[in-house]
């Protein structure tokens, strides 16, 4: 039946590709569940807790946008491996709540897909691994190149930057990044 080989082959490749794509999403979703647990434990014990035994990263913060019902657990580091599971805290930037700029980065099609719905004035809550929560308000958004972000991590004031790839609906990698910039307004009530 040579005439069936072609459609079967196509079906197989199609399934593999689709599976790979779905796997990325599944990984991102499942990891967040595990990360949520690990993060609760981190807050409770005050120690770095790995979400699974072979993980090379650990949860450091939780991002929450109440208006959109979006939340995500941030991992230490922004390597490709870490970003597959959750947003990453970009190296050499400050922690949330510290003076300077905290930069969190995540994939536009998984964890930070909600960024396209974030508008100026939205409030973003960051819970740190020590249990403290800080509230930021979005004041600008912009598009920059990945190597020309112009971010000075030691800048004055208390800033938060969420970064993801731009444009949102593109299928391929690009050099541009979408930045949501927020400034701290207060320690959220009942955080301490």
């Amino acid at each position: 039946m040579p005439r069936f080989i072609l459609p079967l082959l196509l079906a197989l490749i199609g399934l593999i590709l689709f599976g790979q794509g779905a796997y990325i999403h599944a990984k991102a979703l499942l990891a967040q569940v595990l990360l949520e647990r690990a993060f609760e434990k981190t807050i409770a014990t005050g120690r770095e807790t790995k979400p699974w035994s072979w993980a090379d990263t650990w949860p450091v913060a939780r991002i929450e946008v109440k208006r959109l019902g979006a939340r995500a657990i941030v991992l230490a580091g922004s390597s490709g491996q870490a970003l597959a599971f959750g947003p990453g805290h970009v190296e050499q930037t400050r922690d949330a709540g510290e003076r300077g700029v905290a930069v969190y980065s995540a994939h536009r099609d998984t964890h930070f897909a909600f960024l396209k719905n974030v508008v100026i004035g939205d409030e973003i809550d960051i819970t740190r691994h020590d249990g403290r929560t800080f509230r930021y308000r979005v004041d600008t958004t912009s598009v920059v190149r990945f190597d020309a972000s112009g971010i000075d991590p030691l800048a004055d004031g208390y800033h938060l930057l969420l970064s993801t790839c731009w444009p949102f609906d593109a299928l391929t990698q690009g050099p541009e990044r979408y930045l949501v910039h927020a400034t701290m307004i207060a320690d959220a009530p009942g955080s301490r």
Partner: protein
Amino acid sequence: MTTCDEIEADKRSEQPRLVRLVLFFVMQGVAVILVGFAALFLSFEPVWSAERLQSAFLKPGDARAGSLLLKIDEGYADAARLGIDVDLTVSGPTVRARVTQIFRNPSKDWVEAIYVYPLPAGGAVDSLKMVIGDRVVVGDIKERQQAKIVYEQAKQNGQKAALTEQERPNIFTNSLANIGPGETVLVQIEYQEPLQQSGDAFSLRVPMVVAPRYNPAPVVQSVDFKPEGGGWGLVKSDPVPDRDRISPEVLDPATNAPVNPTRITVRLQAGFPLGDIKSHYHAIETEKLDASTSNIRLVEGPVPADRDFELSWKPAAEKAPSVGLFREHVGDSDYLLAFVTPPSIEQAQQKPMPREVIFVIDNSGSMGGVSIVQAKASLIYALGRLQPNDRFNVIRFDHTMDVLFPSAVPADSEHIGRATSFVGALQANGGTEMVPAMRAALSDNSGDANYVRQVVFLTDGAIGNEQQLFETISALRGRSRIFMVGIGSAPNTYLMTRAAELGRGTFTHIGSVEQVEERMRGLFAKLENPAVTNLVAKFTDASADITPVAIPDIYRDEPLVLAAKLDKLTGSVEIKGRIGDRPWTVTLPLANAAEGKGLSKLWARRKIADAEVARTTRQASPDETDKAILALALEHQLVTRLTSLVAVDKTPSRPSGEPLKISELPINLPAGWDFERVFGERQRVPATQTERRADTEEARVQIAALKRAQPVVTQAPSTVTLPRTATDAELKMISGVILLTLSLILFVFNRRQMSLR
């Protein structure tokens, strides 16, 4: 009958239509997939490269090297070129260099000349003299901004003025205002530098040309941060605002005779009977005055300034002195310079720890020509030296990057064979994105404490974003040690030495293919033998300000070099450390120190380097660093990042009303470099580049770093590089669905045909 026939006919005509339809779908599907993948792997249009298009005619704005630049508004005047005279005096532990540049203005205009030149990274520049006709004007040290104001004022007034500024610790710029038609001007720089010692050999190096650098230029595309952002926001401006002023033209050696004739003389007063004296890249003539003194000059007379000059000498005795102690009294302080070479102790009983060696090789365009040959030979030699119980990996980079093995592999013959053929096939091309390669080399995934982790980094260091690399090393070095191997005729020694210092390793220079084996053998002695660690120096009586603050580990055949400022010259200094697992102590009585020259400046220069390192490692804030550097520089009259030398002739010479023109002079391409590899096909074409990172499953991202050597004058702003944040999930899913649909159509079609039969 008829109806039947009609049906038959209908079927027949329907069949090809269906085939055509299916074919159409197949083609469409294939096209969609192809386009999808092409988009994934190919780069986008370089829409952000608008700033590249500025130079329509061959402006010198694309390469930097050391020489006087003569530029006139309409293009280039056929200006007389520069003559350089380097006069070196070695006395004891230091070398004093006097570099004289002779510049003649052959044009009929008044000109301002701008001159970019290299000096050794450890050199302390403390003197600027300008000789115009029979007048000598001596420069003063001032804060950089202030010096610039003084210079600009003099320029306006028609006075002759000279300004020496530091762009990098090893790159300086001189500006000369108001040189009259037909006039000749001499610019004289003096600097002090400690000698290099390695094993029995002492050496000095005079850089002659600043190699064209690759700058991963951050070009901002669009910005809309809040205006009152309190100083944070986006850098909209050119990272190198004065690039045209300081970018000399690099002459294509294929079509131009070499320029900038240089004469070198060395007065060598070694302080001990001299044995073998060797110049590595130039033919020399040695005149022996007495047992320990020689005069050295170049055989051919003046040579083109296109490669570094390196001179090394050995004592006549079997062993070089292993201890040197020198003092100088300046003001009310004493300065001390100590050289101590720890003994080589074999670890007899204990087997050395196995090593995990990560080799990184730069195959960017600047490595074209003989450099890549040297680098490949060095790396292949190194692979052959690995022990079977070692582990290794190989990373190659230009603007893209490849990691040979997913993680470090055992050094067995199969892996070595694969690595050797990988290295053998490398071609030099493209830009130099060094930071991602360094990150990959430092990512220590296994963290196996049974292995000593070493990174051997082979490059010419021709990049402008040095600070970014230093910050990467300081943040990610972990337990890895970084051994820089400088390749080629004019490597960036500042980058090499500072990177090795931050990475707690060493710097080895390989300037020719013949040196590969000897130098790599030396490097492997350092890699394989235990370092001298936990070093501390203590003065018994005097209170001392010692530099380096934290004494780095010392590798085989290297001396410990220590500079100190003392309140009194009594007692002794005790140096303690561990060689492998054995303690080691040496005590030097200060009374025995010999008189030396310029030690205070070397101490200050070293302190300034310490302050810069502290800033890089975030141990000191930028403000504290600047304050410390400024105080040291002003006290010791040194040119630094924050201070400049300025000389102003009192009498105005340019009549008011005469216009002043800016003059630039071209320079040579470093010897052994391949012009086309650096600048493209004899004309600069904007090249788009791709970056490939090994640590993610995604393939390539287009980056706008342009293959363009840009002036390396200002430090790249320390900015955060944002990670890549797109997955190909959607692309994969869409192409998957397309393929599935396609197969379904085919399947149904086949079934139908089957059932029809």
